[in-house]
């Protein structure tokens, strides 16, 4: 028994992907676990995990969700009551969204307390603040989508807050409402923002954030 196989295939080495995956995993592992483990280092890993959960369950929800006022609430009711695991997918998307905000808050508190935003990581901090704003915007736009009383009241209140943003607030609120009052088109705008516009922004900024972490290293690893 002498299997004749080339060296490259000794253990799953196909087109060099294994070594590349290994390098990526090592890099991730370096961010998550180090011998100098102190404080809540896991916040970045939890945020990454929750982002994946949100992306995955969001795609699953969009299979049944209908962004029309006449059908939105009904489609969610159908999902929760009749689709197998529908309640689970909806619940995961809901709670992972809340947990994401908690994890982001812990992460930022820690970076702030450790002065990890300081030179040379100012840009990283700014990208992170951008990510915070987008996550908040996703939470806000997502809350209207079930088209129930709670979401509607929340949207009215939230749009008032958006309006209070200096300079661009008024324009942004009109764009989000698709007019001067909350109506059927508002739901569509919120859906587009929540499911099509912001996820790409999150991915882009998160990628940039990760590249910057990989370039500058972690502040904990410095003496």
């Amino acid at each position, binding site marked *: 028994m*002498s*299997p004749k196989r080339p*060296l490259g295939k000794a253990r799953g080495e196909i087109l060099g992907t294994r070594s590349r995956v290994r390098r990526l995993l090592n890099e991730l592992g370096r961010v998550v676990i180090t011998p100098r483990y102190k404080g809540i280092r896991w916040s970045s890993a939890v945020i990454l995990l929750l982002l994946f959960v949100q992306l995955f369950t969001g795609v*699953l929800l969009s299979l049944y969700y209908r962004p029309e006022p006449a*059908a939105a609430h*009904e489609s969610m009711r*159908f999902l929760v009551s009749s*689709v197998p695991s*529908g309640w689970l997918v909806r619940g995961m998307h809901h709670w992972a969204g809340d947990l994401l905000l908690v994890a982001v808050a812990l992460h930022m508190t820690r970076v702030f307390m450790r002065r990890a935003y300081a030179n040379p990581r100012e840009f990283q901090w700014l990208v992170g603040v951008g990510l915070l704003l987008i996550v908040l915007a996703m939470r806000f736009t997502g809350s209207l989508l079930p088209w129930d009383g709670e979401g509607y009241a929340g949207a009215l209140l939230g749009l008032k807050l958006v309006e209070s943003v200096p300079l661009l607030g008024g324009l942004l609120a009109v764009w989000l409402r698709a007019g001067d009052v909350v109506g059927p088109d508002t739901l569509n705008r919120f859906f587009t923002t929540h499911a099509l516009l912001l996820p790409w922004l999150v991915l882009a900024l998160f990628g940039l954030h990760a590249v910057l972490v990989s370039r500058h290293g972690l502040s904990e690893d410095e003496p």
Partner: protein
Amino acid sequence: MLMICRPDLQKQDFHRLEEHIAALDESARWTRRAGRLVLQVRGRDPETPALKALADDPAIEWVLSDPSPEETARLFSRRDLLDVALATTGLLTAGCLAGPIGLYLNAPPAYRGLHGDVLVARIDALPVGGAVSRIVDGDDVIVIRRNADSFVALSATCTHSEACVVEWDGARRQLLCPCHRGVFDVFGNVVSGPPPRPLTTFETVIREGNVYMRRKR
């Protein structure tokens, strides 16, 4: 007999070793332990010329002619074990998730077989001449209140093109299909336009101020 290769093994070294192995008539097996390529050769007589040639190859760094269990165990690194454990956990998790996700993706056909009545409207929330859209078992249904105590439940899927959903026009008291201008009356009969058949009608039941729709088996 275990032969441990140098860590910086090149492709040509590997091919040379393979030639040596081909010259052996004993069985040999490649494994990977602790990040090293390890050659397990059955048969322990190191005086065999072919085996000697293999053992003397510069690509072989370390030869254990009679490895003790401890030495063999040392070749299993903690990293190898963790790799295997992690991969197993991942595969198990993925396997456990695959079933529910498959069912989730497939839901409407699997749930066509449901029977019983479905709550579709509350009488006091639906004005006379008004209509409400519902999704029942994944299909669009429209419930119209004709008068004080008469309700009609119709499939809202247009019989002309199944991709289109008809809408209630309260002023004209007709159902309109926005795609190809099909028009139905309040009972779902075709008034004008391309639809070939009337809309499917569902039986309605009124109980305790609620309107229920009876599913078709």
